[in-house]
């Protein structure tokens, strides 16, 4: 497939309005995974906007657009950056392309080819264009390529059963962390037990008074000292200074008063204290629990004038006690009798605006806690009953009918405020409004109905309210203090059990991760080709089955310091592919020993043995061992060796053959058996006797099977006549001559020959100086060819055709020499010269050379 054909396949992956302007086939993604993955890069244009696409291709070259899947999309916008480096060790050949778009960084390794220039030019044109327009392009057309969950994205972002993205090679430690957290909270009941704590919540609007009376009657009247105190005050200080500058002496006065009057039977320490203008919240805890208190954070929200000032609002403290998160809120909501809507709004504002900020964590709101206790002067009133009736009823402790008209009860019931919270039954007199210093209802002109302004709500599992009451004896304010006692279940982690469950979870995750490593089954890892003969293709198949849960991409990869992933005599098809889960792929392994590999086998520099590395991307490597015995043949032997073999090659011990091959340079005539290889003589003689008049001699091909029979006849030795047709014998002769370890005219003389080709005398001179046995073969063959030309009337040969044919055989190109890319014209000139060289010897009498021996 050529470049344009591939391009049209890539183009099909996109809409026709999205034009592929440049692409590169052999890019390797390095960063972010540092696994070299082969990918195709394409620049795609839509209107004025361009983007770089990185595509995975399941086979190479891609045959249809279904072989391609889009992995990465990088819009070329103003944030797009491209930097190019060369590979320091190989600056000519390898280039690194660093692309950055919207904080995603990728690094690609690219082979230098002329195509790269086009690609990079196009890329920079795109960058230039986008930076020349004032507005940021929108890339609406890219939306469809982002965040796809179908197979396209699978190879890139694998999906864990829990729906968590997972890339094999990049350690998703952070994702894993949250997965662990999630799993651990699922199993919480396995490693936690609960312990009950008593919690005292108190609230008092002190109406700008100092603590001139003891607080014992409020804070310390229960049978047992509570584990926690949460005490809230409102209207600590109504002075302008406090309101404007948020400074007051009262803070310490009231704090010290609380410290002084908490239950003396236990020792308490402060968890936290927070104040905003007149609102203060104090949390104390029994000293013995203090070490289990963590992450104490507080926040304040003003909802007063302009929705900001702190004369109204809420102050909150949160902390973790063992494994339960607790939140306490003390609020003073909007005043004014009718304005319950305003109070509802204050509640919502406090909920929405309270933010507990902790380092390295998402901010928490009030609702993000296991237990919430909300106390304060909530300021809801009784408006629908006349004050005299209210007073009469409450004086008789007949609260029911009055509470029915309590704004808060009504709003709570409609879920307009404190939705999800609970309030205990109210069995105490309204706490507002009294004449300070007395238990008498407010005697001022306003004549309002008494109300339960001061309240306590809670939310959370396993919380029981033990008491809810007011404390009328504390009468310095126009409000009475209120308190509630809760018995709350606090979760405690059993460290021992926690560790066990944690380890279990970790183990599960490790197992899951290890299971996601691509898994395949290969039906065999040792392939024995048995006996392999020259030019006889042998095929074996291995089957790879993907037994994992995800698609697997495999590739045979190179071993250390090797140029190719397998030996030259082996063909592996396909050598890379993607196999879907539970599917199989058959891989054909083909061995063919041809002229190049045969001489190495004969000389013992190579053998039929190889280990292939089958690599699974993101997974293991499997070694496939290839084994076989090469049946040595006269094809692929050097002329110097053949002239020394006085028996069929099959009878020559392997070691002996290797030895001869390695000493072939020292071969001299007087010790050698033949002057030319007997195999050549057999074939030539056969044609000489039976085929000189054969039409189309040397032009019509023989049959492969007959050639193999002739090979065996030569290699095994036989008294039978040579099998096969004259054409097969003629082709076998050509193959034999072509496969000799060294060409008949040594490689180093080739250029001399080409230069001399126009001059018969010089050519003769060169032939005179050839190594002895090569010269023999050369002259012998030329003699034979002259003979054949005598019968051109019958066999149709002409000296031009023959000299071209044999020119290429006598003057073989050196396969090991890295060839300058030859132009077609250049090659024609060389071929002509080769023919010309041989031509002299087909038309001139050179018996003088033969006799000079």
């Amino acid at each position, binding site marked *: 497939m050529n470049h344009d054909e591939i391009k049209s396949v890539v183009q099909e992956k996109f809409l026709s309005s999205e034009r592929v302007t440049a692409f590169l086939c052999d890019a390797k993604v390095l960063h972010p995974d*540092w696994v070299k993955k082969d990918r195709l890069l394409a620049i795609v244009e839509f209107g004025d906007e361009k983007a770089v696409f990185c595509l995975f291709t399941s086979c190479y070259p891609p045959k249809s657009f279904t072989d391609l899947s889009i992995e990465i999309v990088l819009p070329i916008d103003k944030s797009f950056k491209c930097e190019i480096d060369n590979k320091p060790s190989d600056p000519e050949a390898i280039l690194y392309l660093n692309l950055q778009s919207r904080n995603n960084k990728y690094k690609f390794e690219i082979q230098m080819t002329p195509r790269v220039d086009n690609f990079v030019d196009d890329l920079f044109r795109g960058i230039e264009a986008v930076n020349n327009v004032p507005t940021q392009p929108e890339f609406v057309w890219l939306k469809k390529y982002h965040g796809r969950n179908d197979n396209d994205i699978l190879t890139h972002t694998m999906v864990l059963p829990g729906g968590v993205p997972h890339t094999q090679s990049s*350690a998703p*430690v952070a994702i894993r962390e949250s997965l662990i957290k999630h799993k651990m909270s699922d199993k919480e009941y396995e490693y936690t037990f609960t312990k009950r704590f008593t919690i005292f919540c108190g609230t008092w609007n002190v109406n700008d008074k100092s603590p001139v009376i003891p607080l014992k009657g409020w804070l310390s009247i229960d049978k047992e000292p509570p584990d926690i105190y949460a005490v809230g005050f409102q209207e600590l200080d109504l002075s302008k200074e406090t309101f404007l500058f948020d400074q007051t002496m009262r803070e310490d006065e009231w704090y010290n008063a609380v410290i002084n009057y908490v239950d003396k039977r236990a020792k308490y320490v402060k968890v936290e204290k927070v104040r905003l203008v007149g609102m203060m919240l104090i949390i104390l805890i029994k000293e013995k629990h203090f070490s289990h208190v963590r992450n104490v954070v507080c926040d304040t929200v003003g909802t007063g004038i302009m929705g900001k000032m702190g004369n109204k609002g809420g102050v909150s403290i949160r902390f973790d006690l063992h494994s339960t998160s607790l939140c306490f809120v003390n609020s003073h909501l909007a005043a004014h009798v009718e304005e319950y809507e305003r109070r509802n709004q204050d509640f919502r504002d406090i909920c929405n605006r309270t933010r507990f900020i902790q380092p390295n964590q998402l901010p928490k709101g009030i609702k993000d806690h296991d237990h919430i206790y909300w106390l304060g002067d909530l300021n809801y009133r009784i408006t629908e009953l006349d004050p005299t009736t209210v007073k009469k009823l409450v004086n008789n402790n007949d609260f029911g009918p009055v509470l029915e008209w309590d704004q808060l009860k009504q709003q709570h019931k409609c879920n307009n405020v404190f939705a999800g919270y609970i309030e205990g039954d109210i069995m105490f007199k309204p706490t507002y409004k009294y004449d300070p210093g007395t238990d008498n209802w407010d005697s001022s002109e306003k004549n309002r109905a008494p109300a339960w302004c001061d309240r306590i709500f809670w939310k959370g599992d396993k919380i029981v309210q033990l008491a809810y009451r007011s404390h009328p004896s504390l009468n310095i304010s126009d409000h009475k203090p209120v308190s509630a006692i809760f018995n709350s279940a606090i979760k405690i982690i059993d460290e021992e059990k926690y560790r066990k469950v944690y380890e279990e979870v970790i183990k599960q995750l*490790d197992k899951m*991760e290890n299971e996601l*490593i691509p898994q395949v089954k290969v039906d065999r890892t040792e392939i024995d080709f048995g006996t392999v003969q020259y030019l006889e293709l042998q095929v074996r198949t291995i089957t790879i089955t993907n037994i994992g849960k995800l698609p697997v991409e495999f590739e045979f990869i190179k071993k250390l310091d090797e140029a190719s992933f397998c030996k030259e005599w082996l063909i592996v098809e396909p050598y890379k592919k993607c196999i879907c889960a539970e599917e199989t792929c058959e891989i054909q392994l083909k061995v063919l020993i041809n002229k190049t590999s045969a001489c190495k086998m004969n000389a013992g520099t190579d053998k039929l043995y190889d*280990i292939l590395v089958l690599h699974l991307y993101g997974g293991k*490597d499997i070694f496939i061992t290839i084994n076989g015995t090469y049946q040595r043949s006269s094809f692929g032997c050097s002329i110097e060796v053949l002239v020394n073999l006085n028996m069929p090659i099959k009878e020559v011990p392997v070691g002996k053959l290797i030895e001869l091959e390695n000493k072939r340079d020292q071969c001299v005539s007087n010790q050698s058996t033949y002057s030319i290889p007997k195999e050549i003589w057999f074939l030539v003689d056969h044609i000489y006797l039976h085929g000189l008049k054969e039409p189309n001699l040397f032009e019509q091909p023989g049959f492969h099977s007959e050639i193999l029979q002739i090979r065996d006849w030569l290699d095994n030795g036989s008294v039978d006549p040579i099998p096969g047709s004259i054409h097969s014998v003629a082709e076998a002769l050509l193959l034999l001559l072509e496969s000799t370890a060294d060409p008949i005219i040594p490689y180093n003389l080739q250029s001399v020959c080409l230069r001399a080709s126009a001059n018969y005398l010089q050519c003769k001179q060169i032939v005179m100086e050839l190594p002895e046995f090569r010269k023999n073969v050369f002259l012998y063959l030329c003699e034979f060819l002259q003979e054949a030309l005598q019968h051109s009337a019958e066999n149709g040969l002409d000296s031009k055709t023959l000299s071209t044919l044999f020119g290429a055989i006598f003057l073989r190109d050196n396969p090991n020499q890295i060839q300058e890319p030859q132009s077609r014209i250049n090659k024609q000139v060389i071929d002509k010269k080769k023919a010309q060289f041989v031509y002299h010897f087909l038309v001139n009498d050179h018996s003088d050379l033969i006799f000079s021996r």
Partner: protein
Amino acid sequence: MGVGKSCLLHQFTDKKFMADCPHTIGVEFGTRIIEVAGQKIKLQIWDTAGQERFRAVTRSYYRGAAGALMVYDITRRSTYNHLSSWLTDTRNLTNPSTVIFLIGNKSDLDAQRDVTYEEAKQFADENGLMFVEASAKTGQNVEEAFLETAKKIYQSIQDGRLDLNAAESGVQHKPASPGRPLAAPPAARDNCAC
């Protein structure tokens, strides 16, 4: 019979003894995330085929290992005798800072012991290797061997002996997501003597 490399890896990653572990023909790997000095580290452990005939191929896998675990079988002296040649390979093909740990496996088969602890310990000391006897079967010392290796790698990173930026350090730094601690997952390789 193998010295138990694959079993050690399974014991470490799955906490199980795979008595009938198939022969390793190639290079497999397992991963586990561990904690060293409060840091989460992802270990990627390569388990190579130990057979002599694969030795030339498995050499390609040493490159870039941050650590190597060499294993012999305490019940077969021949596996112990091979150690020096494996060690030579390991030293030649890895960084000087690569941590090498020697494990004498199958310590549960004390009755059939063929190599004493003292002898191997001396070999380890002479060659600057860390050493324990372990059993993939009972799990004894398996965790320790891998964790010690990881710890040592971590220390090398801390005191700068192992250059994280070198492409072949075998250690990758992952950028921390906001508010998360760093994670540096090193790769350890499991070599063999059998």
